[in-house]
């Protein structure tokens, strides 16, 4: 049952909810005595008892005041609790999203998930606050009013409820429709969000190609659809509300007619009829609110279903039930490693095997799309569903305690994702307690120190979303510094020199070699000239490890590596030629 997802939250705030519910009961009960007092006042007037009438009127005011107090308590606690529950739900939802693995994000759009975290969570909150409140309110008002009415005249009460079956029927229909149409509205909302998000994230491309209008049209299409779905949703509302008012009115009119006849017969007093009408009047609002309540509940349930789907997604990367510590020596063994991305027809890695001795330097090279990044992703345990084994210091990667793993790994992704924090915060991302001296050291190694003067506020300069205010090479170097900050045993650098000039690259590499001599380093690169001194070179092609060895041996073999290398070597020779002539 989907609602069971909410039970723990309800339980946690049961105190507040209970106070709220009790206040509803008491408050409603008090407020419902008001028409009764009104009846007394009018009956007293009919009998010319002026003082009694006035007393009843005063009592009515007092009762309302006390009832109002309880209503205050109810709102304060019920709605307050719903806000707290919303907060907790959003926390848990985000926590869960943080646990979900890259594979999940390969298949879901961030925009969609954001819509869930805001809009849908709010719809769920509406159940918990106003939803419960109005439902309780309606139920209590209905039952107390009915009881009081019955105590005055059972016959009239029954007559007043002639439209009841009709009411039940329309409620049922409305419920179904609201749910269905609201689901459509919400998913279209997510589509609108996603389109906007993409256009804004890719604004540079959009502008470079003068595609503002094209993007605008795309967005219009989505939001036009959103409009249409909304209108179809409102059609249900537009039917429901007038319908409910009408049914309530019919109840009142049947009261008036039959009650009137009874007054004429002399079986009830005018005062009773007036009180009766007042009760029916008081019922009008709860009945209309019933429509609203249904709306809230159905919206909320539709959202709950959507959220539930995300909650049900199991994170792919989880702690092994019997986690092992990582010895942090840095030896890596890979055997028969094969991997396919979901829905990709061909495997991205096929039977790759190699050894990285502790403290060694390895370069991974190969054509575009040959699986280098995929290999790095598997080594940093971003995906689990691979064939073969990966062992760090003799322990299976999947068995190593996650915190150990994260602490011992330094990873610089190819797209160097930065956060809209300051430079300092970005560098210290994996090592929050980074001190100034170490920061300077890291900046030195990653050759960022040189650029410092260019940053208006030094290390406290914000870098903008994804680092938009940095140059390509600066972004990459911040990425490198970030990967180094927590002193990793195994350093995975994925093509992080592509936007760095050769001079800086050479400096950076020699700095790294000095400062990180103990770490095992895996370096993906397309610049072969810089990696000849690597302890080992892995050459990938089409997902396979086609060659492996030291530079000199590979050149001798005369395979892919030699070809790639010669490509760059001939360039170098041309330079050399140009130089000497």
């Amino acid at each position, binding site marked *: 049952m989907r609602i069971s997802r909410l039970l723990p939250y309800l339980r946690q705030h049961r105190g507040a909810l209970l106070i709220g519910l009790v206040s509803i009961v008491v408050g409603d009960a008090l407020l419902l005595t008001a028409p009764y007092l009104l009846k007394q006042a009018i009956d007293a*007037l009919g009998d010319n008892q002026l003082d009694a009438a006035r007393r009843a*009127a005063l009592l009515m005011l007092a009762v309302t005041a006390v*009832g109002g107090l309880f209503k*205050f308590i109810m709102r*304060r606690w019920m709605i*307050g609790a719903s*806000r707290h529950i919303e*907060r907790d739900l959003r926390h848990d939802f*985000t926590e869960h999203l943080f646990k979900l693995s890259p594979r999940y*994000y390969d298949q879901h*759009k961030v925009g969609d998930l954001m819509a869930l975290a*805001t*809009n849908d969570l709010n719809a769920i909150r509406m159940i918990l606050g106003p939803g419960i409140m109005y439902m309780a309110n309606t139920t209590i008002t209905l039952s107390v009013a009915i009881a009081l009415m019955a105590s005055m005249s059972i016959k009239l009460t029954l007559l007043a409820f002639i439209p009841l079956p009709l009411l039940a029927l329309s409620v049922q229909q409305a419920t179904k429709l609201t749910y269905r149409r609201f689901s459509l509205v919400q998913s279209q909302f997510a589509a*609108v969000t996603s389109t*906007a*998000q*993409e256009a*804004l*994230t890719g604004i540079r491309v959009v502008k*470079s190609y*003068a*595609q503002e209008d094209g993007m*605008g049209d795309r*967005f219009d299409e989505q939001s036009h659809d959103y*409009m249409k779905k909304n209108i179809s949703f409102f059609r249900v509302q*537009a039917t429901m*509300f007038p319908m409910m*008012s009408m049914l309530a009115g019919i109840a009142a009119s049947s009261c*008036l007619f039959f009650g009137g006849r009874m007054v004429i017969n002399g079986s009830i007093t005018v005062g009773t009829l*007036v009180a009766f*009408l007042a009760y029916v*009047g008081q019922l009008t609002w709860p009945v209309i609110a019933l429509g609203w309540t249904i709306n809230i509940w159905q919206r909320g349930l539709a959202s709950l279903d959507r959220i539930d789907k995300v909650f049900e997604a199991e994170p792919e990367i989880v702690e092994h039930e019997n986690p092992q510590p990582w010895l942090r020596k840095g030896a890596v063994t890979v055997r028969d490693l094969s991997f396919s991305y979901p829905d990709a*027809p*061909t495997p991205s890695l096929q039977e790759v095997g190699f050894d990285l001795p502790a403290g060694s330097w390895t370069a991974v090279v*190969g054509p*575009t*799309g040959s699986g280098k*990044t995929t290999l790095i992703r598997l080594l940093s345990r971003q995906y689990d569903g691979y064939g073969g084994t990966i062992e760090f210091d003799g322990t299976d990667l999947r068995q190593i305690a*996650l915190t150990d793993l994260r602490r011992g790994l330094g*990873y610089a*992704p*190819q797209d160097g994702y930065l956060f*809209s*924090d300051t430079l300092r915060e970005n560098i210290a*991302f*994996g090592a929050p307690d980074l001190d100034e001296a170490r920061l300077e050291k890291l900046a030195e190694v990653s050759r960022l120190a040189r650029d410092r003067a260019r*940053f208006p*506020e030094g290390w406290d*300069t914000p870098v903008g979303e*994804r680092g*938009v*205010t940095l140059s*390509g*090479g600066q972004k990459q170097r911040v990425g490198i510094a970030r990967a180094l900050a927590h002193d990793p045993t195994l350093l995975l650098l994925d093509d992080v020199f592509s936007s760095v000039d*050769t*001079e800086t690259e050479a400096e950076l590499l020699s700095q790294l070699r000095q400062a990180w001599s103990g770490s095992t380093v895996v370096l993906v690169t*397309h610049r072969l000239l810089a990696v000849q001194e690597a302890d080992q070179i892995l050459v990938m092609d089409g997902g396979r490890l086609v060659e492996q060895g030291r530079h000199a041996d590979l050149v001798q073999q005369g395979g892919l590596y030699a070809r790639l290398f010669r490509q*760059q070597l001939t360039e*170098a020779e041309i*330079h050399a030629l140009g130089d000497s002539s």
Partner: protein
Amino acid sequence: MTAYNDIFEQEHEDQKATGSDAHLLRRLMGYLRPYMPQVVVILLLLVIVSALGIAGPWLVKLTIDRALTSDASNAERLTMLLRITGIYIGVLVVTAGVHYAQIMMLQTTGQRVMFDLRRQLFRHLLRQDMTLFDRQPVGRLMTRLTSDIDALNELFTSGVVTVAMDVFTLVFIMGAMVWMDWRLALLSFSIIPCLFLLSMVFRSRVRRAFRKIRVRVARINSFLQEHLAGISVVQSFGQEPRRLRRFDQLNEDHTNAHLETVAAFSVFFPAVEVLSTAAVTLLLWKGAGLVASEAITLGTLVAFVQYAQRFYRPISDLAEKVNILQGAMAASERIFELLDRQPNIRTVAEPKGSDRVRGEVVFDNVRFGYEATSNDGGNNDSMANNGSDDEPRERKIVLDGLSFRVEAGERIAIVGSTGAGKTTVISLMTRFYDVQEGRILVDGVDVREWEPRGLRHNIGVVLQDPRLFSGTLRENLTLWRDNVDKLDDAIERVGLDSVIAGLPDGIDEVMREGGSRLSTGERQLVAFARALAHDPPILVLDEATASVDSETEARIQAAIEELLRGRTSITIAHRLSTVRNADRILVLHKGRLHEQGTHRELMDHDGLYRRLVDMQLKSASVDAS
């Protein structure tokens, strides 16, 4: 405190309003103008609904006075009763029908208005200059586009028009009361000033809270957007707990702002209820005397009591509406603020059109620095124009007196160390930013005199950071244009055909957000092919093949050789193999042109370029021997 905090705490939450409520409302009403006929009909329907709404108590009074307490015969009284009930039911059915029509028209119009507004806002956003996007997180802009506009929708549908209905109802009820007995009527109205006072106090408190809510929702959105898009980094660094704690702060702030409104409403609603009961009590007190002295009938008093109760409903409704209205007002402030922002990049009165250029580019003593993003203005939530007119805050100069000339059809390469300003040169040429001093000419015309989009049509740029859109690969290549006839040729030339062959749906394969389905190099090929397919007279390649292996790169170079003939190309690269064939190489250093010439000339010159080449040579020649 993390910087995240600092950035966000700078937003002043109690920002001054963009104008008075009346002003905001008037502006909002402007959006209703195209729908005037509908609005008039809606208002008419509203008048009918509220007029019919007061029929109930009136009929009750008639029943009591004419049918129940009159001296006529029982049969006559029964006929009377039957007739009144018949009228009552008729009124109910008509009301329901009219009400349906009214709600439907209202919602449809509301949705149309929202659609218009959303469309306007989105297009306005896309027209903004880069400074906005450098500063504003995408998540925040999206909040404006989605939930803020939805809040406005509430204003139209639940708000303005229903308020009108409540007001009509009030007027009708007041009219009916005055007509029945003016003394009792005045008595009932005596609570109105109290209610007014109450809602004044309440309103200001709620508005403040709603402003906070708007800001804080946007923060949550930005946070999520950023962290979910970068989830693999968060996870690889094991930072989930720490980031989550940061999120909790944002979440807590958001909740607290809501709790402020809860506190206000929990006082307001019961207070209204008590006040209105006080009015009824007063009525009974005074009315009792009048009935006793037979100044009024019992029926009149009963009708009065009923009216007084109905009186209270629209008012308490109005309170609920105030809730919505305040939220919407806060949202509209933000939206209008954004809409009022004029792009710093302005178009001159008669811009140069979009004809195809020859391709001559001149940088004449260009001086430029980015506006500092820090300090107050930087990440401030305010979207207000920071004005290119006023004296810029401290700028770090990136280009300092840069001059060079590119002839039409020339093949130019720009090299320079990282951060030297190469990408900036391109951004200025495509007019993402305006220069501070000097000028940039394309075909002899200052870029500021070009229609920006016409200019950009002429310049095909492959950006350093290749971004794909979700949508098919084909859409990514054509960017939703239909008339891209060079597409197949472009795909072949950059070698994208083999990548496409490997995709299940070929060129119609749906790309995921950001193109995560392809490797980085493959994405660069897509961006490259996209630029070629658009067949621009000026081609700009900013590290276009930096993540591509040298074999593929050499193949591409050979394949586009023929394409480059007759067009201007500007290539930025660190790999010297990419640049050596250029007609001229510009070496950028410290924001100036350090040296220029052909590869051969520069090698002879023994300057910066030579040093860079030697770096590569040295490492290569170790094993070359």
